[in-house]
């Protein structure tokens, strides 16, 4: 099977990952994450001072700003802001920094599909770089159901998105996993437990949805592995003077 994206041969193949942490000089944490030609940069400032009206007495206030590739932020960007904020709120241990604010700015650098998933991955890398305490990390992947072949394609490009019958973005954490709960024989239910966020548009059946979740779950393991390697490389570089 050949995909519209000629660099890939399989429907369940992700585009090559790229990431870079600590790129911005004046932010407390920053990162860039790429899925092939899709690229998102994220900066984190905090725990910092917060406006009095946004101050929460028992936890940190999370503010997410999503900036589009060109032009002014629109409704779509506001929806993404909300998606990212609501996914991160239970993940960030905000009780450790009461009466402070954590500002997250997400800027699309290059758009070739799967931007929301790319943005999630960039955000978690930036939060790790900033040293914000987190319950766990997350990983995100997008997939589509092709309108002609009814096949599930992972990590679609803009071209492939145009042919999509439905689009699904899934976010999973690194704590709950299908294999770690052997008593949970029903795999579909296990995937549901582990999902931090899921966003679907278009027409799809229940079976298609769970199949997408299953496939994305497997793909996210590769993203988690990549994030771990990226952090490891950075730490080794920092520590090489002491441990050489």
């Amino acid at each position, binding site marked *: 099977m050949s995909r519209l994206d000629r660099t890939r041969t399989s429907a369940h193949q992700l585009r090559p990952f790229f990431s870079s942490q600590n790129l911005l000089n004046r*932010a*407390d*944490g920053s990162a860039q994450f790429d899925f092939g030609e899709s690229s998102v940069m994220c900066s984190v*400032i*905090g*725990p*910092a*001072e*917060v406006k009095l009206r946004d101050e929460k007495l028992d936890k940190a206030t999370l503010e997410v700003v999503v900036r589009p590739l060109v032009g002014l932020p629109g409704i779509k960007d506001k929806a993404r802001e909300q998606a990212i904020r609501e996914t991160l709120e239970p993940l960030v*241990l905000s009780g*450790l*920094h*009461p*009466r*402070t*604010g954590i500002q997250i700015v997400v800027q699309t650098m290059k758009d070739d599909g799967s931007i929301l998933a790319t943005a999630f991955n960039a955000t978690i890398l930036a939060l*790790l*770089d*900033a*040293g914000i*305490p*987190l*319950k*766990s*990390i997350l990983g995100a992947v997008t997939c589509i159901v092709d309108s002609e072949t009814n096949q599930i394609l992972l990590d679609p490009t803009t071209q492939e998105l145009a042919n999509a019958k439905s689009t699904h973005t899934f976010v999973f*954490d*690194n*704590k709950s*996993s299908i294999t*770690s709960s052997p008593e949970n024989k029903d795999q579909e239910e296990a995937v549901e437990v582990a999902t931090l966020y899921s966003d679907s548009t278009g027409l799809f059946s229940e079976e298609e949805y769970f199949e997408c979740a299953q496939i994305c779950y497997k793909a996210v393991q590769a993203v988690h592995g990549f*994030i*771990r390697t990226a*952090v*490891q490389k950075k*730490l*080794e*570089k*920092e*520590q*090489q*003077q*002491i*441990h*050489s």
Partner: protein
Amino acid sequence: MASITTEEESKLLIVLPGDQLPESGLMEDSSAAHRLTLGPGLAPMDDDSITAVKAGILKHNAVGNRWWVESNQRRYVAAQGESIIGVVTGKSAEHYKVDIGASQPALLGVLAFEGATKRNKPNHNIGDLLYCRVSMANKDMEAELECMNPTTGKADGYGELKGGFVIKISLGLARRLLDPKNLVLRLLGQHIPFEMAVGTNGKVWVNSASAQHTILICNAIRNSEYLNSAECGAMVKSLVEKM
């Protein structure tokens, strides 16, 4: 889920948020059995497991069975007992307000100086640079500072820093600069005489005979963060030669 094994001490043991520490490994070589001290980067979770909350290197000290995660960040979060460098941003009858790079300015009592009394107290102005100690840090309150050793009441080097230059670096690099064996400082010391104060809040004050030397030292410290020993030596050498 990545489970952690603690067999190799020499290898860097890197943890990410969500990695659980195995209960068996935590208690291994502790003589004071069943006592465990958790440092920064580790937290007990709702399900009674001990989980990393920051990305970093898992460290262990057998004395007191202490475990912590050595991580790097740029934003300071005040912790009691740490020496920091701050800038006076405000002044009232009883307190100076000091910017220490944390989420809120810290408070420094006007009497928290060596030998200060109500009649005779040091006078600092807005913009002055102070080297102080965090005497109280609490997540719900502003941090409190002092410019003396609380046990002896002596200044112990704390106080105003005059002249010189301040740079901001990452907290991890600041901690590494405090290591007496730190390579870049040792190399710089072979070429240039200088004095410095390192605040664990990532602020470093450097003073030397000329501005040229001060700038060189600041640049060398900044450059050293991601270099290995050989590269660090070459970097200092090239900077000194160019001068």
